[in-house]
């Protein structure tokens, strides 16, 4: 966001104000869009129904109506619960989403922080949310919540690894951890000498992309990996005792982090905010870039939610086996193959 007002150099506090507005938009807009387009509408059409139609044209104001409803709900904290921890959990979960967006670039000058360890930082902070979930499960003093929290912890650490190892392949190809560098590497790259569309890493890192998507699904606890909130077994898992706005915060965080992870996947594998054939340093990319990135976020999120609405839930033991016996060995092989090809060519 350094010079959105083109060619005007802004003081640091002015940049910070712009960034603050930017991150609020980056967290809330994709989250709202994902809920309306996918959860309300796409899911309904897949199940041969219309979904919300009353509030606004085609039910597009439904989300505001929902927020208006939740905000009027009485605040209920079970008397056995650990009140401080109970209140703290939503803060941690929402905080994680904001911290994840820090590293994602939206254009040549439209970035929040140009961290040299970019993707490493993102992988590190994105795993903080498991603490919030464990705290929520533990502090509720509810058996369903406790089981949900423990399941979530086991699942998130198991799928953290394939995700991290899948990213290594991208880093080997881009030779940098900086996300702007990764975008540039994809834009200027070539696939065995052919540079017609650059080198979006989805083409040369297809196995990595698949592993990343599966791990993404599990990290977001979307079906078929939704054991932590399995309705038919655990009521609502770690969120069972949360109601009103506190529940809504978990809900927002779930979809906002879907948007954040989709943005990371789009940046790593689909070329980020760049398009083939555009000038990376052009000023207009600061406006076009966020739109392009949003389109790619929707594309990745579509895959995630398509799977979510299509497949039934795994069994808990199958979940761990998939991570440890399939995804991790596969990602190790992927790293070795990428290294060999990188050195050979």
């Amino acid at each position: 966001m350094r010079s959105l007002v083109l060619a005007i150099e802004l003081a640091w506090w002015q940049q910070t104000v712009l960034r603050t507005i930017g991150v609020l938009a980056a967290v809330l807009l994709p989250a709202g869009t994902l809920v309306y387009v996918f959860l309300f509408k796409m899911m309904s059409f897949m199940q041969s129904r219309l979904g919300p139609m009353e509030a606004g044209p085609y039910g597009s104001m439904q989300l505001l109506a929902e927020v208006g409803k939740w905000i009027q709900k009485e605040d209920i904290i079970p008397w056995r619960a650990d009140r401080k921890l109970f209140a703290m959990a939503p803060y941690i979960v929402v905080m994680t989403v904001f911290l994840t967006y820090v590293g994602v670039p939206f254009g040549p000058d439209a970035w929040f922080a140009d961290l040299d360890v970019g993707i490493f930082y993102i992988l590190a902070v994105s795993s903080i949310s498991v603490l919030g979930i464990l705290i929520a499960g533990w502090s509720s003093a509810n058996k369903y919540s406790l089981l949900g929290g423990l399941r979530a912890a086991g699942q998130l650490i198991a799928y953290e690894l394939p995700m991290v190892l899948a990213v290594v392949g991208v880093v080997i190809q881009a030779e940098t951890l900086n996300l702007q560098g990764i975008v540039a590497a994809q834009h200027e790259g070539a696939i065995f000498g052919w540079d017609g569309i650059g080198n979006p890493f989805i083409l040369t890192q297809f196995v990595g992309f698949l592993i990343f998507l599966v791990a993404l699904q599990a990290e977001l606890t979307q079906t078929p990996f939704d054991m932590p909130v399995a309705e038919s077994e655990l009521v609502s898992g770690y969120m069972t005792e949360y109601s009103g706005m506190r529940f809504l915060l978990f809900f927002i965080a779930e979809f906002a982090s879907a948007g954040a992870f989709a943005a990371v996947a789009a940046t790593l594998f689909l070329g980020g905010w760049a398009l083939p054939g555009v000038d990376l340093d052009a000023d207009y990319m600061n406006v076009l870039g966020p739109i392009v990135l949003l389109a790619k976020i929707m594309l990745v999120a579509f895959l995630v939610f398509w799977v979510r609405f299509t497949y039934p839930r795994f069994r808990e033991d199958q979940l761990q086996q998939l991570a440890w016996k399939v995804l991790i060995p596969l990602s190790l092989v992927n790293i070795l193959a990428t290294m060999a090809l990188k050195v050979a060519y």
Partner: protein
Amino acid sequence: MSDLLRSYLTVGVFLGVAVALVAAILGLGRLIRPSRPQPDKYVNYESGVDPVGSMWAQTQVRYYLFALLFVLFDVEAVFVFPFATRAEAYGWFGFVEMGVFIVVLALGLLYAWKKKVLRWV
């Protein structure tokens, strides 16, 4: 202040923004929502019947071995990342070195697999 520290200052600012947003939403709710406390409302949900026993039930943490393995592989990832940025510069020497490192860890995974640690008991 250097650019590096400024970048991480942004991280701190965003942390503040996140906390402020959550506090603002909850604060707004506090102004609007009703409050009619009744003792029954504050009982833990246990499918509609009165809760039985202590709420902090003892559960078997089934995955502490997974957690140990996770730490091992996470540390591996920490070592692989700096190497990955310079893979081409190190050439075949680096490939063999890193290959040995990864294969040794993969053997560890294989050992755990054969010892039936990777089963959800």
